[in-house]
């Protein structure tokens, strides 16, 4: 495990680096992380009885979009 000092030094280095490889891989990883968190949170909201409309509002997308993406799992 990285110690706090090591990891913060590393982060500073990555943030200042102009290497597209690091930056692009970070973007891809962030996208995957967001997708997984979305599945988790939408499932939780549906379990608690939230409507698709309410969920879509919080996610900042249309009801159709969120329904198309997630309704299949709840069928």
């Amino acid at each position, binding site marked *: *495990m990285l110690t706090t000092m090591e990891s913060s030094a590393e*982060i500073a280095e*990555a943030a200042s680096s102009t290497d597209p490889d690091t930056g692009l*891989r970070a973007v891809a990883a962030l996208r995957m992380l967001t997708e*997984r968190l979305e599945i988790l949170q939408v499932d939780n909201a549906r379990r608690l009885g939230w409507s698709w409309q309410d969920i879509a509002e919080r996610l900042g997308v249309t009801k159709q979009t969120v329904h198309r993406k997630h309704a299949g799992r709840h069928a």
Partner: protein
Amino acid sequence: MTIRQALDHQTPAARAISHSAFQHAIRLGHPYMGSEHFLLALASADHPAGAVLRAHGVTPDRVEDQIVRLSGGGLFGDLDRDALASVGIDIEAVVDRVSRSLGPAALHKASRAAFRERRVRWWDPRRRYVGPGAHMNGRFLPAGTGMPQILHHAHLEEQARQDPQIDVQHLALGMLSVTKGLAPAVLAALGVSVPELRAALADRP
């Protein structure tokens, strides 16, 4: 050396480790094969290298507990941890927090759901790039982070010792050089000293 070549270039015992890693991934409900599944397979192996791992506290139970915790029931196990760390995200903290607020069962269920979405039907005529991975009994698991790396390092260990084929010992030594996937995080969480483990593994003929 490609994954295919590396898998063909193994002793039967090493091949059994790969199969066992595959089955561990399926059993845990993980939609990918990562270095952590190899670590679990090696720790449960009926082989001198497995005994060395267990003697150093790398037992199947402890490894599996850490895998389940660190991967968040499989939902976050295949993310590129280093890439996320480079933009300041500690994935371990994210997983711990989410798992505490929603419960491990919800994470495992969401992982299954994410897996189902990605499943490719065998009769679907659309061509798509599936990428490297392992095929067994009609099921395909994409190579998650670390799997190509462990095979590559096992191959290097084999070459360094001038052995004819990749054996279990090479896989175990290769495992310790892996930087991707959950294996390094699991070993760190178990408080294992990698140099000590490497010396003990290299001792065995």
